């Protein structure tokens, strides 16, 4: 029981931090990481949110190593999700 509780608390903490980070990421962070995301629709950002919450340590590390600032979005291919 004790081990199960520890696992669940750790999962809950990871998820809570992930959700908080994901909200920041889809509103602000993703524009810094990928200029193609600048000006994208909120439905696309909503689609990215679950992945950002799950992979937040990796994204946080990527953001920390990104110091560039972008002014205009470069293009990317359009055939996005098939």
């Amino acid at each position, binding site marked *: 029981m004790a081990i199960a509780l520890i696992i669940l608390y750790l999962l809950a903490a990871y998820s809570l931090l992930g959700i908080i980070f994901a909200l920041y990421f889809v509103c602000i962070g993703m524009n810094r990481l990928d200029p193609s995301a600048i000006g994208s629709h909120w439905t*696309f950002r909503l*689609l990215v949110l679950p992945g950002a919450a799950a992979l937040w340590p990796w994204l946080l590390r990527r953001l920390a190593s990104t110091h560039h600032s972008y002014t205009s979005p470069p293009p990317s*291919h*359009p055939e996005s*999700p098939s």
Partner: protein
Amino acid sequence: MSLSYTWVGWSRQKKIYDALMLSAIVLYLAVFVALARAFQAPGQGLSDVQLLIRALGTAAFILLHIVLCIGPLTRLDRRLLPILYNRRHLGVTTFFVALAHAVLSLVWYHGFGNLSIPLSLLVSNTNLRSISQFPFELLGAFSLIILFLMAATSHDFWLKNLSPRTWKNLHMLVYIAYGSLVLHVVLGVLQQDTSPVLVAALTIGVSVVSGLHIASALKESTADRVTPGVSIVPPDVAPTGWVDAGSIDDIPESRARVVCLRSTGNVPGERVAIFKYDGKVSAVSNVCAHQGGPLGEGKIVNGCITCPWHGYQYLPESGQSPPPFTERIRTYNVRIEARRIYVNPAPNPPGTPVSPALLPEASHRNI
């Protein structure tokens, strides 16, 4: 062509595909519940919710089989390529069907006790060393986590920002999810219901998935071994180390031949697509920068090599996507002597412009 991300790239064909897929799933669930209710053994007494749980579970399992079979099927027969285009939607749908199965199961079997549902799942069965009593739900939960990660990262945003290699590795976890799901079924359902029909269905499913993968792997490996004409050529015909990639007459206009260059010295082996177009021949890597699609199975459209998987395009002379796009693939130096194509196996960096070799008839016209 748009220049920013969209949430779903729906076309008319994709909408039809999705509508058919969802209709088939709903029909399957309805037929499963109706038939199970009609043919339920006396005294078994499964409720409609329990039947729906089983219907959703089997639907997700069947969908995962279909998802896994699409890749090898398209490698075995190129006419099936269109079914590959919407595989991502099928995969995401598989996750949602599996999620519905999991949520209903958790609420039904763990939602009415004193413990919270997650805690009940972890502590209600701890017989990890028993086969007949194994907590098979945990195996299902493990698979669901992998399916979630795949569904959540299915958008091209993730492909670009995780890097294609990391994204591909992440999505290869589907095979671990599949293995875990097979165990989930064997240690769960088949412990309670040893119907020969279920055992046969599971055996056939696993055999089809593994058989198709083995067949497609054998086909590709055989194709690499018997690529005609690929051999090292003497230095009086072409510079030392170049390989003979066959006759130009064997390549249809605007199409390619794929040759597998062996690794030699510091040069790694790679499949190279040699395209013939407009009186010229160019060679590029066979691997699309998007999702690793086989460029050599595509064709030249509007002057660009067009990937058969998702339509990504590259200029044959430079391996660069046409402006304003930015993808790049490796290029190779080629020459033509006596109607045979010779390729330098040392690749140029991605996006390096290379002069195409002119076909003899085109050269004469230019003179």
